[in-house]
């Protein structure tokens, strides 16, 4: 064991770590909210009878899912700048993450939609509910409940993936870590601290989703059974 670990030398920069963690959480929060919206719309869009909308949603989902996030971020960031549009790194990061996670959410939601028994939809149709109302009242919540674990994982994954935003000068946790480790050359200490911080952040997010689940699924709260 030739390695001397010196955590205090790195930990004394805790305000930087904290600022990075907060920014990571902010990125994750906005991208989660907007991405869930975008993804759900895309999932609904893929299920419509309008082949133009369905096709556009399919192209969106497939393109995003099959190319790396880093490339997407670069294209948004430098692409916008080349068009003369300058937004802050944060705005661009949120936009790119939203576009990215929206595509994954769309696929997961689609699986959830398809898991709703046809009889449920027929019963709703028989009650003269419109397509929108059926989605809103009958399909959405049970579908989300069915795929909630997958969704939770996907959004935590998004939070971890937001580390590539360091590439476009967003000062999130990984960016802070890279700065500190190249300034101090204490890579082990820095990465171990960052690993712990990410675990904490992911627990915070999971706790958030768990709490949200309690609000969203009152039936589960009372009966404890999945749909």
């Amino acid at each position, binding site marked *: 064991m030739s390695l001397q670990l010196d955590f205090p030398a790195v930990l004394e920069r805790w305000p930087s770590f904290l600022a990075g963690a907060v920014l990571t959480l902010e990125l994750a929060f906005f991208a989660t909210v907007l991405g869930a919206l975008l993804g759900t719309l895309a999932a609904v869009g893929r299920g419509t009878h309008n082949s133009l909308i369905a096709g556009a949603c399919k192209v969106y989902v497939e393109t995003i899912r099959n190319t790396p996030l880093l490339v997407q971020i670069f294209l948004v960031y430098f692409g916008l700048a080349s068009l003369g549009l300058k937004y802050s790194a944060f705005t661009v990061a949120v936009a790119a993450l939203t576009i990215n996670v929206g595509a994954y959410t769309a696929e997961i939601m689609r699986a959830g939609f398809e898991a709703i*028994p046809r*009889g*449920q939809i*027929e*019963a*709703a*149709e*028989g*009650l*003269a*509910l*419109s397509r929108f*109302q059926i989605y809103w*009242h*009958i399909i959405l*919540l*049970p579908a989300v*409940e069915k795929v909630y674990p997958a969704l939770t994982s996907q959004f935590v994954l998004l939070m971890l993936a937001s580390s590539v935003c360091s590439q476009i000068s967003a000062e999130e946790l990984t960016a802070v870590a890279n700065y500190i480790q190249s300034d101090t050359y204490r890579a082990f200490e820095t990465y171990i601290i960052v690993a712990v911080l990410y675990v904490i952040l992911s627990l915070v997010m999971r706790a958030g989703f768990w709490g949200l689940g309690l609000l969203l*699924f009152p*039936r589960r709260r*009372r*009966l404890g*059974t999945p*749909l």
Partner: protein
Amino acid sequence: MQQNSSSSEPIVSLHNVQKSFGALRVLDGVSFAVARGEVLALIGRSGSGKSTALRCIDRFEKVDGGEIVVCGHRVDRPDVNLRALRQDVGIVFQSYNLFPHLTIEQNITLAPCAVKGMATSQAKDLARKVLVQVGLEEKLHAYPEQLSGGQQQRAAIARSLAMQPKVMLFDEVTSALDPELTGEVLKVIEQLAADGMTMVMVTHEMGFAKGIADRIVFMHRGKVHETGPASILTSPTTPELTQFVGTGNLKS
């Protein structure tokens, strides 16, 4: 949207309706009509196409040929206004299909609020009223899975009643009910009939059909094989119906 229908004019009419699933011809030229206030019982052995006929009336299946008119809606046409049709028609399925994530009260108030724009408080009163009708008022805040099968079916009927449709379609709704509750539901349905409700019910309970139906349609292999007043059950003319009600006597 809805044509004027005098009491003699049928509210539901099927004319030479055809329907196949792949190679299987399930409805093979079915015709019958239901007048306003009439209660029609659709009987026949399993697989004879009863459920399919009922589903065609509310356009859960598109027909391959023939004509279906319900409350003035041309159901066979591709441009039929589905939502208008289904505000006029209430349907209760063989499998209850309550919405599992909503309480019984929410199941019932959903459509009146969302479709008819009813105020929440008014819808809740309505929910209580229809639940009393089916004897389930104490389950207002339960979730469907907390109910036994019979209770679920009654809740599903209540949900349909709450939309106050012009025609009600029932697909073996009493299958899961014990005699006592069947009686209660029967009373509800009799009351509905007295209020002028038109009803089509698929049933295999001959006693029930006899007691409530104004007219019987006996289906056999996708065709209307025999039709007439309830009395045809006691004096059938075709050998198929004779056999059908004959074996049925085992039950009573």
